[in-house]
């Protein structure tokens, strides 16, 4: 291990470490613009200059990012030559820099500003006219201001190399290098938001945050993104009671330093003026005491009269862990026997629970977010990762970039197809394909154990040689990884995924297995479920057997008209949520709750990592909505208007106190401690701290649950419809944001070229499904398996139609 002297400090570093990282280890911050630990070193900006005395005793000026630490090196960053070089380099960069700091959003967090002041500059000493550029429209998220560019190349390196985008690059030369698209237009990559954080100056700024505040005025929280199960860490920033922006928070164990556009720009739902912020009881405004008193008394009365099993408590995967725990606690004492479900969608409930069981039974390490890029062979199956878990797709791309092998057995893959070996696999065949891969690992022995039939037909699905290749590669890999979806997997496939990991383990490898879960807390919800409760609850609801219900952060989209109508006939319906919707209007009692960025709580991400979060703001009417004309309000109050909103777990605890008399937990810590005592799985909750890396849950403490997920109907059923998320536009919370909708465009179904040809499709389809006709735009996509139709989840779908059901399809001409 080379040992060097860095500014007088002796440090030992790994071989191959560059001097910037060596400086970081030594505690010396070397200034950089173009160097980025995930993008590599290019030596473009010249600002990391330092002086190195090598073995021959000669001192040289070198760029720290381009120099590898050698044993015996003596590095200084504060000698006269290095300081002078840095000073001049920054002055030259500032020669062409526009005089626009007052109107630039980067001000206050601008690396160029910081280094210019650090080098002691205050005036431009030349009067050469500055070079300028015309700017481009780059979409609804990113603002372009090219005059500010210092040509560090971070944007094009990230966009093209790291993220694989094709429509943005560097053009030109000399002092007129231009970073933009070939033609103005929305940036196509779903990771374009990272340009805002990467750019050391204000060339790329957040359009949603434009001209709102300075960073030093913001209240910034340590939170977790609620838009998918990856669980990226974020810094929501709020001022004047308005959530103004979301920035990435670094977590080396999860998202590193990157975020996707859905998470960065999908926060409009928090400030939505239609948000319900007032307690309502029996159609009238009420106080918390009145509403809780009424609801508690009613729940108790139903339990006494009809039995607690006539009560239904349902939460969804966007509710925090503590909310789910409080819901379970509500079904105790006099309400013991109430039916509890942790999902609001029965299809997703059974798949998530089965996925968790498969993961726990496989007995291998979970495939954490940070593990994905480190795999040397990665198999992605049953998902289009960029649509279901975008940051996982970004990490998967790095496997191929680092020389590893990336295989995709998916449907609708549109992001990894340029770096992976992809086969479009009909979801009904996926189980077979996974078994074939397992067979190829264990050779003859493995095949016999699993009772596998050889996949003889070459037609649709992966060719036999591909599954053999995948099996061989996984068996020979040092760090094999398997990442499966869930929405596109049936029972056999979910089991086959776990069996594949077990086969790998038996062959002597150490595989890591992961699934995509629904919502930010799908894993947590599945871990708390003792079975697929929701299906039975909905059936009983329709049959009139449920008398009262408490619904927490549920969305009735997966419930059919009869079930929703049955809600209106309940003796009591209590709804807790922060989104407007039809359920909230039906409710006998409505209790407004906080959004994620206004809450303290925890989520469990798709790899079983428990991450705590702390709020950025308190809810309430934004100051801007109370303006007098165009002046700040002059009202005198004791509390901000519309701020009497509680966190969901708090509201449930108070409801439990009202119903059962047992005093509510007075703090989050108390609730967490009680849950940790009751269940070993939640022991990490006791020490869960926001702003840390999080804690992996112990898969060994997950209870065994019996769950049966039916197999998809075979591929010879005509066109089978599979509902799937799309990166922008289908996720429940982010699709309430106008810029997200504009960038997403209207939903379109994806269909294979062969099927489109058979139908004579010309841009649109009419689907007959579940007794309804749905008109939808449609697009041909090469990697859609024949016999399937991939329908985005934001298309309104009749409830009760199973995933993978056959649909009648006819071509339509779309206007």
């Amino acid at each position, binding site marked *: 291990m080379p040992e060097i002297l860095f500014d007088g400090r002796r440090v030992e570093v790994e071989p191959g470490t560059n001097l910037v990282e060596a400086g970081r280890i030594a505690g010396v911050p070397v200034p950089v613009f173009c160097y980025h630990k995930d993008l590599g070193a290019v030596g473009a900006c010249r600002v990391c200059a330092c002086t190195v005395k090598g073995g021959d005793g000669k001192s040289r000026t070198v760029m720290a990012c381009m120099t590898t630490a050698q044993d015996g090196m003596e590095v200084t960053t504060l000698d006269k030559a290095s300081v002078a070089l840095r000073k001049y380099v920054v002055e030259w960069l500032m020669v062409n820099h526009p005089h626009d700091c007052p109107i630039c959003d980067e001000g206050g967090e601008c690396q160029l500003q910081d280094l210019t002041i650090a080098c002691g500059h205050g005036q431009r000493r030349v009067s050469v*006219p500055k070079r300028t550029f015309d*700017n481009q429209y780059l979409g609804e998220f990113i603002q372009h201001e090219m005059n500010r560019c210092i040509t560090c190349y971070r944007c094009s390196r990230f966009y093209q190399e790291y993220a694989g985008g094709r429509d943005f690059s560097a053009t030109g030369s000399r002092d007129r290098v231009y970073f933009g698209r070939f033609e103005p237009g929305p940036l196509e990559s779903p990771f374009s938001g990272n340009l805002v954080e990467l750019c050391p100056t204000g060339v790329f700024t957040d359009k949603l945050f434009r001209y709102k505040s300075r960073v030093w005025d913001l209240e910034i929280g340590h939170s977790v993104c609620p838009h998918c199960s990856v669980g990226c860490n974020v810094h929501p920033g709020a001022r004047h009671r308005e959530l103004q922006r979301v920035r990435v928070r670094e977590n080396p164990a999860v998202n590193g330093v990157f975020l996707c556009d859905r998470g960065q720009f999908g926060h409009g739902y928090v400030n939505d003026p239609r948000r319900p912020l007032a307690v309502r009881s029996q159609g009238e405004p009420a106080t918390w005491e009145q509403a809780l008193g009424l609801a508690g008394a009613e729940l108790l009365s139903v339990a006494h009269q009809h039995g607690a099993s006539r009560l239904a408590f349902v939460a969804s995967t966007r509710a925090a862990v503590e909310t789910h725990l409080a819901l379970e606690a509500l079904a105790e004492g006099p309400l013991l026997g109430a039916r509890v479900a942790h999902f609001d969608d029965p299809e997703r409930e059974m798949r998530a629970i089965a996925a968790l069981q498969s993961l726990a039974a496989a007995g291998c390490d979970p495939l954490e977010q940070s593990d994905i890029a480190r795999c040397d062979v990665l198999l992605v199956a049953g998902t289009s990762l960029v649509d279901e878990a975008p940051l996982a797709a970004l990490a998967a791309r790095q496997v191929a970039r680092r020389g590893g092998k990336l295989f995709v057995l998916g449907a609708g893959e549109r992001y990894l197809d340029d770096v992976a070996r992809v086969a479009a696999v009909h979801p009904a065949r996926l189980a077979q394909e996974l078994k074939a891969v397992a067979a190829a690992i264990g050779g003859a022995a493995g095949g016999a154990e699993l009772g596998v039939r050889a996949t003889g037909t070459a037609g649709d699905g992966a060719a036999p040689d591909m599954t053999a290749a995948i099996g061989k590669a996984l068996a020979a890999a040092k760090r094999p990884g398997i990442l499966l979806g869930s929405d596109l997997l049936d029972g056999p496939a979910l089991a086959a995924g776990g069996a594949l990991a077990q086969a790998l383990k038996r062959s002597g490898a150490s595989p890591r297995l992961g699934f995509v879960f629904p919502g930010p807390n799908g894993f947590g919800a599945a871990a708390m479920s003792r079975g697929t409760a929701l299906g039975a609850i909905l059936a009983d609801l329709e049959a009139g057997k449920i008398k009262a219900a408490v619904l927490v952060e549920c969305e009735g989209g997966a419930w059919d008209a009869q079930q929703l109508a049955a809600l209106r006939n309940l003796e009591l319906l209590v709804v807790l949520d922060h989104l407007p919707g039809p359920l909230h209007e039906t409710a006998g009692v409505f209790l407004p709750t906080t959004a994620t960025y206004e809450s303290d709580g925890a989520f469990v991400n798709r790899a079983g990592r428990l991450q705590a979060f702390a709020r950025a703001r308190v809810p309430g009417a934004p100051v801007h909505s109370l303006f007098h004309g165009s002046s700040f309000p002059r009202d005198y109050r004791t509390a901000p208007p519309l701020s009497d909103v509680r966190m969901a777990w708090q509201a449930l605890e108070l409801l439990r106190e009202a119903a059962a008399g047992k005093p509510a937990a007075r703090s989050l810590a108390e609730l967490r401690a009680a849950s940790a005592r009751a269940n070993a799985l939640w022991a990490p909750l006791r020490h869960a701290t926001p702003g840390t890396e999080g804690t992996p849950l112990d898969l060994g403490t997950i209870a065994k649950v019996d769950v049966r997920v039916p197999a998809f109907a075979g591929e010879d059923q005509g066109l089978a419809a599979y509902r799937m998320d799309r990166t922008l536009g289908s996720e429940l919370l982010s699709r309430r944001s106008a810029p997200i909708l504009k960038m997403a465009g209207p939903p379109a179904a994806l269909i294979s070229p062969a099927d489109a040809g058979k139908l004579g499709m010309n841009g649109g389809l009419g689907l007959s499904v579940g007794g309804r006709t749905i008109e939808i735009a449609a697009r041909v996509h090469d990697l859609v398996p024949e016999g399937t139709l991939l329908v985005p989840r934001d298309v309104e779908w009749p409830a009760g139609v199973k995933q993978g059901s056959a649909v009648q399809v006819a071509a339509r001409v779309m206007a």
Partner: protein
Amino acid sequence: MLKETLSGLGVTLRQMFRKPVTVQYPEEKPKVPDRYRGRIILTRDPSGEERCVACYLCSAACPVDCITIAAAEREDGRRYPEAFRINFNRCIFCGLCAEACPTLALQMTTDFEMAETDGRELIYEKEDLLVDHGGKYPDYSFWDEAGVAVTHAMGHGHQDRPPSDPRSNLP
């Protein structure tokens, strides 16, 4: 004892015949220097538009947090303060805000006659602060120097050259 008493009385007698320095306010007004730190105003640039670009530097500099601003963007792309409030109950007239202002919008005048009996009257909004002249610096326009295409086309500011074409082969 007698000497000290007579000496003290002598001081009193001498002062009685000296010219008084009392300024009989409000009939006489004191003369203050041009740089006197009095009432704060928001000035306009030579074209008549308000100078303030709501950069938040004055509110950051203020040691007593008496400035509150909400920035916004006009249709022509100009950044301006939608709301600008100075709470003169808190203001200590130190001048750090005017010193921080990069567009010379915020300036201090020689007017010190601001007393009110109701504190709510001392909260000045933008319409109370905005004047229709350039104050002590009548000729400066930040937007001419800024290098953004708001008051003029890109590349036609005072320090700029016309936009470069990155696709050109010419030197």
